[in-house]
């Protein structure tokens, strides 16, 4: 509206430098180099270590690195043990992430209810993920200990027998998965909970009036809202599970036999026991490729969903 009595507009207080910085439209030729530099700084160490994987090289031995191109990759991919490690890792990732997904979800649904002491329980549930993985590994190792362990005591008392958790391949894998699940289900819970809080109230009201059952409401109203965060949680957990080292190392050192020898354990051995730096780099890159392929599929799904969900109102 025309404000006829207005004095001519004037600058009342000098605007902060910060405001002006954001205000001014940075020309592309100024923004682009900054971006390129920033991205470059992040990519450089990546490419450099990629370079390393084409060399036969050991940090321990003074021999000059020797360029062997795909040699490290070839010998890795030709090694049946590596394929076994991939299998073991896959089993671990599937088991751990699957369980974390289910339990994290369940906990989130539980804690989305109102009840007394909810906040305390929430804080406590977040505690495991705040603990050092090494410590968690140590705790669980102790819990599983057949002689002193608490679990053995329970199964002994309840069922009259003890499971030698860490001494048989299958139980050992389960044990490692359980430890990781204990630690990280609350993470999934946290993200799902954030998603649940973001479900628009009016949609829930609509669903209530529609007399939509829990399942329908869940699938059509709740799930689409939390899906992006859920995908993110699964993505992050998959990535982390793929590279989990500390807990496994402390609990089983990859044993019994090679039952819990995942790729990251193999990587550790290559790089820090055998000091085959080049080959270790190559394995690291093989793992990276797998994770990137996995996460890209996730990411594409998640992002598509996010953008779809929020174009809601035009």
């Amino acid at each position, binding site marked *: 509206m025309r404000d006829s009595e207005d004095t001519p507009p004037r600058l009342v207080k000098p605007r902060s430098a910060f405001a002006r910085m954001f205000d001014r439209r940075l020309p592309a030729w100024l923004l682009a180099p900054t971006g390129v530099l920033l991205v470059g700084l992040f990519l450089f160490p990546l490419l450099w270590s990629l370079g390393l994987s084409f060399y036969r090289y050991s940090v321990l031995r003074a021999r000059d690195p020797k360029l062997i191109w795909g040699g490290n990759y070839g010998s890795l991919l030709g090694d049946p043990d590596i394929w076994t490690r991939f299998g073991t890792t896959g089993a671990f990732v599937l088991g751990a992430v699957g369980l974390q997904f289910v339990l994290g979800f369940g906990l989130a649904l539980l804690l989305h209810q109102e009840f007394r002491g909810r906040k305390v329980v929430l804080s406590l549930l977040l505690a495991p993920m705040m603990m050092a993985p090494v410590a968690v590994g140590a705790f669980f190792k102790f819990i599983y200990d057949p002689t002193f362990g608490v679990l053995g005591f329970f199964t002994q008392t309840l069922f009259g027998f003890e499971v030698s958790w860490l001494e048989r391949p299958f139980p050992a894998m389960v044990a490692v998965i359980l430890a990781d699940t204990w630690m990280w289900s609350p993470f999934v819970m946290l993200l799902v909970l954030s998603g649940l809080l973001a479900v628009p109230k*009016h*949609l829930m*009201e609509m669903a209530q*009036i*529609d007399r*939509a059952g829990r399942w329908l409401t869940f699938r059509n109203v709740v799930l689409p809202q939390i899906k992006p965060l859920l995908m993110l949680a699964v993505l992050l957990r998959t990535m982390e599970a793929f590279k989990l080292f500390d807990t496994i190392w402390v609990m089983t050192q990859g044993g019994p036999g090679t039952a819990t020898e995942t790729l990251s354990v193999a990587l550790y051995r290559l790089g820090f026991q055998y000091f085959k730096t080049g080959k270790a780099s190559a394995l690291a890159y093989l793992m990276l490729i797998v994770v990137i392929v996995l996460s890209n599929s996730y990411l594409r799904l998640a992002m598509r969903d996010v953008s779809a969900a929020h174009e*809601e109102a035009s």
Partner: protein
Amino acid sequence: MAEVHLRDVAKAFGPTQALDGVELRVEDGEFFCLLGPSGVGKTTLLRTIAGVERPDRGEVWIGGRDVTHLPPAERDVAMVFETYALYPHLTVWENLAYPLRERRVGPIDIKRRVERTAELLGITHTLGRPPQTLSGGEMQRVAVGRAIVREAQVYLFDEPLSHLDAQLREHMRAELKRLHREMGSTLIYATPDQLEAMTMPDRVAVLRAGSVAQCDPPLEVYLRPKRLFVARYVGEPPMNFLDADLDASGKVKTAAFACRTKARDMVAGACLVGVRPEDLTVAPTGRPTPPDAVSFAAEVYAVEMCGDYDLVTLTVGADHMTAIASDHSTRFATGQTVNVSFASERLYVIDPVTERVA
């Protein structure tokens, strides 16, 4: 049996008293309208009936059951929200089918009902699309469709036609009335639109600041408003009000005219009289006025042409009055002196203290 009964329902949002002791009894199968200006509490009232809003005080009864503390799902109501919210992740088809899904309606029936509803609302072309690609009016029709696609004891409509054009609205009004007749359910309809409130319902409740000012059949509300607020609010253009004096015999006297009324049980003294623009007949001076009509002279202040009628603003003493001249054969010019007349029974007398209309 699905009469809706509100007993002393109150709801406050912080300092705002959105509902303030609402008493309302909507009969089973009635087409009921809530009329009132913006912010008066219509939406809050409907939401309270639906159960998505809990009243601070009072009870809500539906079909003889106290549902005050029941969740919406157990009240068997269908509702069109004012914001015409739709499930963003479902297509229009799915949005319409949704309320049927959990009712064990077979897929063939679902298909038939959805398609019939869509056709009725003229949104068949949008069925496969997500809601966010619809135009405002299309969205609103889908929201209406979501309510009428299913059977419910009580239907709640919150301004369901606001984004539609006149013809579509007309059509929808007719359809809603037909549906209501066929289903025999109770239907409560909130609107700020007088035309809707006057043409559709069996009864209309005029709300004022969170409580019911008058609750009667529409014509009754129009012809016999009980409160100054209702008299002033209902009618478009609004009623003209003039200061007057009432004597003990029921005779009122304004600056322009005097006339005999039926307001005999009112305290004599200063009062307000009202007369509707459409009850005023404006004629060039000299034309004969009907017998037993009150008539007086006035000067034309402004004339506004509104298509099928002219809105004439008149200077009457120190006041302005509006009148509707629907006789196209006569045109008035500003400054012209005219003769104004009305039937004395069309005069309302209002007690300025109690604001009651005699």
